[in-house]
């Protein structure tokens, strides 16, 4: 009996997990990025309350992404993580400060509150920058020898990484701003609209810059996008992205409450899709394919059995928890 090839299924699951993380922690990191710019303390209370009950679940997708990579594509895990030693360290410590800020900000004395404001803001900002550098290093690829990462722990620090880091900050901030449009009202909502309007343009420019740079990172990526007939077949990706950005702008102008957030998610989807097109079928770009990195079929099958049952259950109760906390955040209904 030839075992069924589970690699495509696991690619989808891993892709789904990482994308869920980017979207869900993306908007609450984005709220943190915008936190210091907020008009006043009352606004900051509301901003934090809008994500407090759900940030924990959002961040869990990061763990799932890491564990799914370890379990389903262990060789990729064993090569990529050492290469990203410092960005991961920086991200993890930033997430620590930001995570405890959620628990402690409302319990702190008013005089100490600004410290937790700073922990939340800079934690979110630094974690996002680190993730952006991870993205940049990932797209550029890693030096590999046999089954090991063979580069230095500073390979990630390159100009392209700076661009992706800044782009991700803008992207998460857009998700955060549109989330706040949906979850708040009155002057805070107006403020979020103004932020979102500027950010959508900035994000479009950033995505353009990353997209133009990426094909120059490797002949393979160049061919993927610019060889015939790909250049025609793939042209809807950038065109749709530009159109989406415009649409989000218009929805913000029309004072739509929910659509800007959905539009921002769609923008991220396009970016993610573009990345997948550039990298397919490699999981360690330029060197190791999904199939080379895959775990033994028995291991992938054993985990798939439970995952196919558990993942829908997780999505269901996550949805329930979002449903319970639906609607606008209001002042005076703090839970702390």
């Amino acid at each position, binding site marked *: 009996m030839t075992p069924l090839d589970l690699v495509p299924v696991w690619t989808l699951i891993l892709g789904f997990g990482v994308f869920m993380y980017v979207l869900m922690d993306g908007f609450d990191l984005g709220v943190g990025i915008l936190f210091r710019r907020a008009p006043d303390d009352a606004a900051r209370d509301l901003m934090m309350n809008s994500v407090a009950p759900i940030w924990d679940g959002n961040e869990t997708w990061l763990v799932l992404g*890491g564990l799914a990579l370890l379990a389903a594509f262990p060789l990729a895990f064993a090569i990529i993580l050492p290469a990203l030693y410092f960005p991961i360290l920086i991200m993890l410590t930033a997430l620590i400060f930001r995570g405890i800020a959620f628990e402690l900000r409302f319990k702190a004395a008013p005089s100490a509150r600004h410290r937790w404001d700073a922990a939340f803001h800079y934690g979110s900002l630094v974690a996002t920058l680190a993730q952006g550098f991870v993205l940049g290093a990932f797209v550029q690829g890693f030096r590999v020898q046999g089954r090991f990462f063979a580069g230095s722990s500073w390979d990630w620090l390159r100009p392209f990484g700076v661009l992706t880091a800044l782009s991700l900050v803008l992207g998460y901030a857009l998700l955060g701003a549109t989330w706040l449009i949906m979850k708040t009202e009155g002057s805070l909502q107006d403020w979020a609209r103004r932020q979102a309007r500027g950010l959508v343009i900035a994000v479009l420019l950033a995505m353009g810059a990353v997209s133009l740079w990426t094909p120059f990172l490797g002949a393979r990526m160049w061919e993927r996008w610019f060889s015939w007939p790909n250049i025609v077949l793939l042209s809807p990706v950038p065109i749709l992205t530009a159109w989406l950005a415009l649409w989000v702008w218009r929805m913000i102008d029309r004072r739509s409450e929910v659509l800007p957030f959905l539009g921002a998610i769609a923008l991220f989807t396009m970016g993610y899709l573009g990345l997948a097109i550039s990298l397919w079928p490699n999981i360690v770009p330029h060197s190791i394919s999904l199939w080379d990195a895959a775990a033994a079929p028995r291991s992938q099958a054993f985990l798939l059995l439970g995952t196919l049952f558990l993942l829908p259950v997780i999505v269901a109760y996550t949805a329930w928890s979002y449903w319970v906390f639906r609607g606008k955040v209001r002042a005076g209904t703090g839970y702390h």
Partner: protein
Amino acid sequence: MMTLDPLILSRLQFFWVVSFHILLPAFTVGLACYIAALELMHLKTRDRIYLRISVFWTRIFAISFGLGVVTGIVMPFQFGTNWSRFSDITSNVIGPLMAYEGLTAFFLEASFLGILLFGRKLVPPWAHGFAAVMVALGTLFSSFWILAANSWMQTPAGHEIVDGRFHSLDWMAVIFNPSFPYRLSHTVTGFLVTTGFVVVAVAAYHLRHGRAVEECRRMLSMTLWLLTVLVPLQILLGDMHGLNTLEHQPAKIAALEGHWETQAPAPFIVVGWPDQQAEVTRWALEVPYLGSLVLTHSLDGAVRGLKEWPRDDRPPAVIIFWSFRIMVGIGLLMLLVVAVAAWLRWKGRLYDTAWFLRVCEALVPLGFAGVIAGWVTTEVGRQPWVVYGLIRTADAVTPSLTGGNVIASLAVYVVVYLLVYPVTLYYQLVLIRTGPVAEEEGAPAIAGLQRSLPARAAAGAVPEPQP
């Protein structure tokens, strides 16, 4: 002079981050179960004392759990950043176990935690109770999977090795490997006991100051009943775990007993200083026959000494000799406390014996120290292997790391944890000092984030008059 060896430094770093992390599950696993029990008792009896106790502990739980989550995220990344060869070699076997931990436990905990902390007024009471039970279940599932992975590293089974990498042959044999049932029950019971002693200490503190008397009596009484069962049970489980270790990892037992020569009958060395170089235990204070009695449950059973293993295969005896004695000493001290409590209860003096309440307060760190000591005993005792008898720890470290890399990351973790742990502890102490408080009239005890409350939830949320 110590050179900048990435292996030693990575081990130090792992020790540092896992030791700090384990303090939180040691507290939150038990506390989640306690909160779930209180919520269920409140649903069943409608006695609002349970509710006030639960609200009090839930606020403390939120801080510990939050820190547990963020320090827990650090852990799986360690496997990749510092132990990438270990990941590459073993992930076919332990990768799925750890992924199952994430799938069955982390999401359950995180999603229902939101409802538990902020949803009391937003969902019907039964749903809130359900959320509490789910959080508790999540912590137990988490313990199940991570200890299955850990036990497999201690007593690997159900696998084959092909081209230097592990492959699973039988998942039931992998998960229910020889040490797993013992390790799981001993660890989880240890977590419950640790939480129990914290609850007892907090209740004792407030009782001694005459505050929240009703709630604290209930806390003290409930928890001491539980500990009366759990502490002797834990000692029994420890003995069984020890015998299991003797069967599967005899070198670990020889090291923690400080035995170098195989003897029959063997004495028990109460205190001493095992010298790895000279292969003797110096200044040993021995009780004849007791070693055989404890390990073989007979007076003249043979007990193997460390000299039966090559030098390179021996765990560092002095560390686990002492960590084991600290753990056992803590267990016996706890047994004494529980016995005194039972006697005081029989005399009807449990709540007003000031010296006993003071002792209870002083014993807060006991469980945590016991958990760390036990963890050190089993993990250092596994050395020099990362997968016992098969892969050496030295062959598991990431090849690309330099000593400087790990010094930098270790320094960051040291600074961050030394900053974050005291700060979160401080905020928890503030909450603990405040104690269980009477519910405020009409105040939304817990969050409101929606347009309007569902009618059912609102009806269930009408505050009752204070007694």
